[in-house]
């Protein structure tokens, strides 16, 4: 278990370092390619779409409370971030709201 965790950390660290340092060696040829620029624009938002689903994969929509607490909190976060363009405000208010819903209301 501990060994697996150490490998997970090493894997994540190496992957991060690769994405930040390897451009020193990527040829100018590839960097100027249309598809490279295109993917650089759109991959971030796509991967965050995946992460949203990944974070929610444990939520059950068939048993009480049918994921309603998550849904309500997410709607509020989307509203706040869209309106205020402030990520920290979205994280803070969404998490506090969720905690209130599951600890106090339900």
């Amino acid at each position, binding site marked *: 278990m501990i060994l697996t965790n150490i490998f997970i950390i090493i894997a994540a660290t190496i992957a991060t370092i690769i994405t930040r340092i390897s451009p020193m060696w990527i040829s100018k040829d590839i960097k100027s390619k249309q598809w490279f620029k295109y993917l650089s624009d759109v991959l971030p938002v796509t991967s965050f779409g995946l992460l949203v689903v990944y974070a929610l994969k444990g939520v059950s929509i068939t048993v009480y409370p049918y994921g309603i607490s998550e849904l309500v909190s997410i709607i509020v976060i989307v509203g706040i971030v869209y309106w205020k363009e402030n*990520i920290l405000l979205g994280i803070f208010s969404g998490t506090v709201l969720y905690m209130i819903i599951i600890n106090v209301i339900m």
Partner: protein
Amino acid sequence: MIHTFKKAFVVTIPILFAFLFLGISYGMLMESKGFGVIWSSLISLFTFAGAAQFAMVVFLTTSLNPLIVFVIVLIINARHLFYSVSMLKRYEETGNSKWYLLFGLTDETFSLVSTLEVPTQINKKQFYIFITALNHFYWVVGTLIGALLGRVLQSEIAGLDFILTALFVSVFTLKMKKRYNVVPGLIGLGVSLIMLFIFGEHFIIPAMIVMITLLLINQKSYVRGENL
């Protein structure tokens, strides 16, 4: 040197607050999952990648295959490739420090160093190093405080996990405000959902393959549309 440090400190103040808040959340979350101060602060020191570290909390608790972790983190952090590409020129004269500067090129550091005009009387190299190191320092200190706070509070705080979802949803929403991001964002969300229904737990790799294929198809129509 002190003058340069002060200048660098002033510009990083917004990041001080952001990283303390996120770092504390991260440390507390890790502590609540049984990963104490040593784990979380070492990860913050070496991996030093916000979104990836939050995603890693789940990977650690579910002991996900490190190779899959490697691929996922590559994709989550792919955007850094492009940050580094655009900073190479500015960092050209920094010699061996370039390694550290690129290693520490997080979203927040990039947003500073890529937009700031360095005053002429200031040593550029020192200025960049101070900014990068200060941000790195805030992140590790935030994590430490969070881990210790989590230990003191002891009792599990129900719902704290949601901070992870909240972080991803917030970043996603902000990115979706850009028009060219809407279709790729929907591809990311939609494909992941469909693959989750088909493959269950292990949907990530098939989802990524389908996503990148669809993105490349979308690019063709995008380019064609532009030429018309």
